[in-house]
């Protein structure tokens, strides 16, 4: 099952696992040299920060962290195809997308530390709060995109979901509603092969996740999720179609979750090291680095610069998280409603009195 990524004929791919442009990959990606390198830099930053988040969790600074290791190409490539006016509705593993939207890593750190809920920067970065109830946010993306149909907006909404999410009822409703309304909505499915411990082969009997698109009456494409240019191009084409009134697209990016589901998971209970090693060999970063070498766009200087920026961000994250002040418990009453109800005012006064007793 997991070997199909190397051989599958209808997998959209620009760079092969060996780093060479594939023979049928005569796609004009229309990216400048700087952009080609920027993609690499963003993947390096994502990889390094992801590891820093894992380290911070291991050191007790974060309660939990879901690593995106192995999925950098899918996340960085797809986010690179979006404009600032587009909207992103993520799940929770999308560090590469968050960074692509310009979300402050410290905000993500405070989220997993247990300082704030949701967060990220809905209005500033057009990036919705992380969404733990699987697939439920895909409906918000469709609602936002339906709004663009109603008000004539040029923006596109992207719902990031996973292979497991495609089994949820809300994903079905979202796909159907998006197609019925012709909404400019992209469903970017990272098929990372595992929904915690259940493999994608036990998630669906469909030939592929992308194949489901035709039943909904929308475009579907299956791309190599470890090929950053394929993920970028698949998303860019979907964005262009959506902006032109062509409605939604379902993109399946075939990739792999190298780490456990979260830092609390023990993946050795359900999958073999050999499988993980096969996918490590398909690592998206080393593949893209090899490609850039072919194109004479990679150098030691580029590597040093990318690593340097990543390290600086990681250091900033570490300092911000470890020095983060504890949240003020009295703030929990602030944003339940626009104005607190009598019951909330009474309970806020109770908490204030309890806190006053503790400090006096």
């Amino acid at each position, binding site marked *: 099952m997991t070997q199909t990524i190397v051989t599958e004929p209808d997998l959209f791919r620009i760079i092969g696992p060996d780093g060479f442009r594939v023979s049928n990959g005569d796609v004009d990606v229309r990216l400048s040299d700087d952009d080609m390198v920027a993609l690499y830099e963003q993947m390096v930053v994502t990889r390094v920060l992801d590891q820093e988040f894992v380290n911070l969790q291991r050191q007790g600074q974060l309660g939990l962290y879901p690593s995106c290791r192995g999925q950098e190409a899918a996340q960085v490539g797809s986010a690179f195809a979006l404009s600032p006016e587009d909207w992103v509705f993520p799940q929770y593993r999308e560090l590469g997308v968050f960074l692509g939207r310009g979300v402050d890593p410290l905000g993500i750190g405070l989220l997993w530390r247990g300082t704030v809920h949701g967060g990220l920067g*809905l209005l500033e970065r057009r990036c919705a709060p992380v969404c733990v*109830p699987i697939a*439920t946010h895909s*409906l918000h993306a469709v609602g936002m995109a339906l709004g663009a149909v109603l008000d004539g907006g040029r923006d596109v909404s992207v719902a990031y979901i996973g292979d497991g999410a495609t089994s949820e009822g809300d994903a079905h409703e979202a796909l159907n509603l998006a197609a019925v309304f012709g909404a400019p909505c992209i469903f970017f499915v990272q098929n990372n092969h595992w929904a915690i411990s259940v493999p994608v082969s036990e998630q669906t009997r469909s030939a592929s996740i992308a194949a489901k698109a035709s039943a909904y009456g929308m475009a579907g494409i299956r791309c190599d999720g470890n090929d950053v240019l394929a993920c970028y191009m698949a998303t860019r084409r979907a964005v262009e179609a959506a902006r032109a009134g062509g409605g939604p697209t379902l993109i399946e990016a075939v990739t792999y979750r190298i780490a456990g589901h979260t830092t609390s998971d023990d993946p050795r209970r359900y999958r073999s090291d050999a499988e993980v090693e096969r996918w490590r060999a398909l690592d998206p970063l080393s593949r893209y680095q090899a490609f850039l070498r072919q194109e004479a766009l990679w150098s030691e200087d580029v590597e040093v610069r990318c690593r340097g920026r990543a390290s600086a961000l990681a250091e900033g994250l570490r300092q911000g998280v470890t020095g983060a002040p504890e949240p003020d418990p009295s703030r929990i009453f602030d944003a339940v409603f626009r104005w607190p109800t009598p019951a909330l005012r009474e309970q806020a006064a109770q908490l204030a009195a309890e806190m006053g007793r503790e400090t006096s």
Partner: protein
Amino acid sequence: MSEWTMVAALNEALIDATAADESVVVFGEDVGRLGGVFRVTDGIQARFGPKRCFDTPLAESGIVGLAVGLALRGFRPVPEIQFDAFTYPAFEQIVSHLAKYRSRTQGRVDLPVTLRVPSFGGVGAPEHHSESPETYLAHTAGLKVVIPSTPADAYALLRESIELDDPVVFLEPKSRYWQAMPRDVPTGSIGRAVVRRPGRDVTIVSYGPTVATALSAADVASELGWDIEVIDLCSLVPLDMDSVVASVERTGRCVVVHEAPRTLGPGAEIAALVQERAFLRLRSPVLRATGFDTPYPPARTEGRWLPDVERVLGCVEQAVAY
């Protein structure tokens, strides 16, 4: 004095709100071409076009999820869930998203969604069409729960709900849809209860469909020599306990009436608050006339399930005789 039904009042409120604010969008199952199965949205699509009022595929979770996405964009969605029990497929969207998006964005976005739901029993409907979902909703932080009992209140409360920047679940008592009642009468507002009938001996607290039951019981009680005050809460969140407590401090007795099953229902919370705030003024325990802790029964037995005048009077008699 001119009269209107609750269906007409709700329809007028939706038309006026749609005309008043171009961000208002009305959508749901059969609300467009058909005008809703109860005709509450009748004529809105014809008048304002399919971008302001449209049909959705059958997808209750989707309807609420769309409303969340539209609200984030600046729309003021007024979706309809066709019947009470059909809110259950949308429960996660209501509880995890509609109710919590404000707090999950640290108060930076408004969720001005008014989710209309024809609710409650007493109309001889088939299974899953007569439920009282208010307890689930009122127990969820972040939702306002508004329930009108008269046409004039339905108009006023729906307009107010649509103008609110918080999500409102607006439960419409189907059994009160078709009675013609006066137009130009004082109305309650969200979080402000109305004394429907002043009295000295017992306070009956109710909302929605059972306010009429309480008033009928009060009429009968007056013939028996008991002077009943009837309070219509208008909303469960916010809950206007000041009005309830002020009344009970005068009467010393309190009966709560609702269709919802008794155990841990709204009556339990009201009874708890009354004894917290008016303990020494009480002359009898707070009593409840409610539906039973059973699934809503088949239509031909609902008359024995719903709290009727007799059940309410039983509580009144018990309170007075205590």
